[in-house]
């Protein structure tokens, strides 16, 4: 009989309850959207942030030699070190790692023969390197996986095009000015007695160290420097959504005991802050809209209690317990929560899909627990919104209401 009364009551007041359910649906849509995105939003925002650079750097451990002659000690000399490319493959399997960019740096001479391998080139910054040799135009040549570099460093501005063959390079804007080179011109580079002619396919502008460098394919630089399969630096891009950067770095370090693995804490902290702020913002908006929905439900139920006071008085006159009267109104409120929550879930799913498509350029996978989560939030909010009107209903005196006052 309870459900019979409830259904008849809901049917009778469908217009008014429909408006309350709509208000709940708006709040629930944001909750649903948030829940549906929450599984992916961190990953998507994290991936977007990953476009702005690596957050883990791998480089060979330095080996120092104490050099001297006779009784004199001249000090420590650091020997150039490289990492074997073959050992890097498993890093891609580490949880959280979304990209990896190996570099091989060399200082080459644009016109003559003197150049040495560069070291201390972490972070891709060659500005601190002291150019050795007697060349007047030494320049840093960076060998990279061009396609990976292009996809990761999407903000790089290239005038011309990206290199498509081993003898093509990108030349940094300032390096081009220094060498007086323009698009399509050729450059003679020399390293350790080996000379190769490279052609400028594009002029690169990043606003960073690359503006002073030449960028060629990794294989071309490995061939030129006679270091096949070797790299001097690996930039790793790892998501911090589900796992701390330190944990990812530790796992990478365990895989490469001969290397030094460092995290770029500033990037990690900035990413975490951005992610947390995005979540906080969406959560706050959802909470505010839910509060507005709850107030609408409470207002609607309050009006209903006032309008139905004779009916409530009658129920009490017939001997209805407070519990049964309260249950009737609370379940009515919760029905609003369920309908609003269900409509909100569907709306939120559509919202999440639209955001995924337009903002992250991907299809969001619906989160399994978004439906029960949204319904639960809708139910709890509607239940809470119904408490005050129900208290009011329970205070109704049948003696007064049944005589029409």
């Amino acid at each position: 009989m309870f459900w019979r009364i409830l259904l008849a009551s809901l049917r009778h007041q469908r217009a008014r309850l429909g408006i309350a359910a709509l208000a709940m649906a708006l709040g629930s849509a944001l909750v649903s959207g948030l829940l549906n995105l929450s599984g992916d939003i961190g990953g998507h925002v994290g991936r977007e942030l990953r476009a702005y650079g690596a957050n883990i750097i791998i480089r060979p451990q330095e080996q120092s030699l104490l050099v001297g002659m006779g009784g004199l000690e001249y000090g420590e000399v650091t020997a150039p070190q490289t990492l074997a490319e073959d050992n890097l493959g498993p890093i891609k399997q580490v949880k959280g790692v979304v990209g990896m960019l190996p570099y091989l740096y060399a200082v080459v001479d644009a016109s003559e023969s003197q150049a040495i391998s560069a070291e201390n080139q972490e972070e891709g910054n060659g500005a601190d390197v002291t150019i050795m040799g007697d060349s007047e135009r030494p320049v840093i040549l960076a060998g990279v996986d061009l396609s990976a570099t292009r996809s990761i460093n999407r903000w790089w501005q290239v005038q011309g095009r990206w290199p498509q063959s081993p003898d093509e390079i990108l030349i940094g804007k300032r390096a081009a000015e220094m060498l007086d080179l323009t698009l399509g011109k050729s450059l003679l580079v020399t390293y350790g007695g080996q000379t190769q002619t490279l052609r400028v396919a594009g002029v690169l502008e990043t606003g960073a160290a690359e503006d002073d460098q030449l960028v060629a394919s990794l294989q071309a630089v490995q061939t030129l420097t006679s270091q096949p399969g070797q790299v001097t630096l690996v930039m790793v891009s790892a998501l911090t959504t589900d796992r701390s950067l330190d944990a990812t770095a530790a796992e990478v370090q365990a895989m490469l005991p001969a290397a030094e693995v460092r995290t770029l804490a500033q990037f990690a902290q900035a990413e975490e802050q951005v992610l947390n702020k995005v979540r906080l913002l969406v959560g706050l908006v959802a909470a505010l809209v839910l509060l507005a929905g709850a107030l609408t439900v409470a207002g609607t139920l309050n009006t209903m209690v006032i309008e139905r006071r004779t009916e409530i008085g009658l129920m009490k006159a017939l001997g209805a317990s407070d519990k049964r009267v309260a249950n009737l109104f609370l379940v009515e409120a919760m029905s609003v929560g369920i309908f609003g929550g269900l409509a909100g879930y569907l709306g939120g799913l559509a919202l999440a899909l639209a955001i995924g498509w337009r903002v992250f350029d991907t299809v969001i996978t619906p989160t399994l627990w978004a439906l029960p989560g949204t319904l639960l939030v809708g139910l709890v909010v509607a239940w809470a919104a119904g408490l005050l009107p129900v208290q009011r209903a329970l205070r109704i005196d049948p003696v007064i209401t049944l005589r029409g006052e």
Partner: protein
Amino acid sequence: MTETMVRAIELSRIYAEVKALNGVNLEVARGEWVSVMGPSGSGKTTLLNILGGLDQPTSGSLETNGTEVTSLSPKELAHFRRETVGLVFQQFHLVPYLTALENVMLAQYFHSMADEAEARVALEAVGLGGRLPHLPAQLSGGEQQRVCIARALINQPKIILADEPTGNLDAANEEIVLDIFRHLHVQGHTLIVVTHDIHVGEFADRLITLEHGRVLHSKVNGLKRVLSSAEAEAARIPVLQT
């Protein structure tokens, strides 16, 4: 020996400074039909509310069916109402979105468990077998009052309290309702009916007249014969020609 169903002793009900009831003494025997008459503001409805457990007296005692009602808590009073009392209202007070059948089942639901077949029989007993699925708005006043009576009877109450049950009815429907009350009386139900209408009052075993919260008269049978013009005027009821 007649068994007492209701025993009220010195019942008073004071609202602010107004004495709605002022020391009312009343005994109603099981199976008796008592009509309560009197002018507006005489305390009729207040008395009925207290007898029905809807209100509590400021002082005095009330024993109904062996239960001291004045000492009951609100929760116990609700239990008393659903177990002991059947209420019939002048305005019917049917739930507008429930059918005639569901309105009767509502009382069953609050009492214990709804039984559709039993509710159907109750409505058939008041001549509404063909109106079960109709909403109150689709029923005439007389039919609504009969639904109200069926609802009052469905839980087999010990006492039926009716407040102006024919007050909103035309003459034809008034006769139908009174006929139902007569049947209930014959079946042994205890009836206390508040009315302005002397025609309704004359069917009672006993007529009580209230004025200013006190019992002015309590007379057995033969109302038309014993009520004086002055008494009738005091009660603001029409004096019937004999």
